[in-house]
């Protein structure tokens, strides 16, 4: 089974967050960072779904952290971006930067 390495805008946001947040990233912190940076607050459900997709694509890896009392004795699932994830995020960023550069010209044409 060939898994597409293409990513969408929301997956890009998660990957970009993981690039800047190595080591301690999990569902809630990822959501908070996205909120800080972009101003919109994605639902945690969206983040879990996207993280699962990114993991299946091999762009991120995850492992279990320690059990903590504040989580009701449950473990955190921590996420780390892989080299392939960084590459996918940079490609996505570059593609949209190119669009951004041509936007004023497009505006003039319209």
């Amino acid at each position, binding site marked *: 089974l060939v898994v597409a390495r293409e990513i969408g805008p929301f997956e890009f946001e998660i990957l970009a967050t993981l690039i800047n947040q190595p080591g301690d990233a999990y569902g809630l912190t990822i959501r908070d960072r996205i909120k800080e940076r972009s101003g919109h607050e994605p639902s*945690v459900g969206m983040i879990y*779904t996207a993280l699962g997709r990114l993991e299946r694509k091999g762009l991120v890896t995850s492992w279990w952290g320690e059990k903590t009392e504040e989580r009701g004795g449950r*473990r955190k699932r921590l996420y780390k971006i892989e080299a392939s994830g960084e590459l996918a995020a940079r490609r996505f960023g570059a593609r949209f930067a190119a669009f951004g550069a041509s936007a004023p010209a497009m505006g003039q044409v319209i």
Partner: protein
Amino acid sequence: MNEAPKVRSLAAIRLELEELSREVEEFARDLIDSGHANAPTYAAASATIRAATTIQAHVRVGAHIRAEAHVIQAEPEQSSLPSVPPSWSSFVLACVASKGRAEELLGDAHAEYRQMIETLGAERARWWYRVYATKLVARVLPGAIMRVLLLHKVIGMLGF
């Protein structure tokens, strides 16, 4: 219901407001007394003194009703409810989440619930948790249905 925190917070606000207005008033009076204030500065200092004295009078005569209402809203409710989230919501969430995700989902939800208790109070936090869990269930339910359908298909293929 324990009333003490509300009274303390309100008293603290009143005191702070009064002190602040006195400081501002003193500063403005010093400015006028120094004799160096030009016309606009003098006018501004006079207006500041009037505003400061008005604030002090309002604080004294009890025009603090708005501040009090604000404090009552902002104060977390004191409640004897446990710091464990509603069990039914957790149960439903655990049922629909995939095996590998349940611990993560419930752990994050629990951690956030604990934070909500501090900001909203226990009773509101419980309602917040119910809504939160419902939204999560709506998100993960399609995946759960797909898993069940897949299982049925596999069982059918095996001829059971």
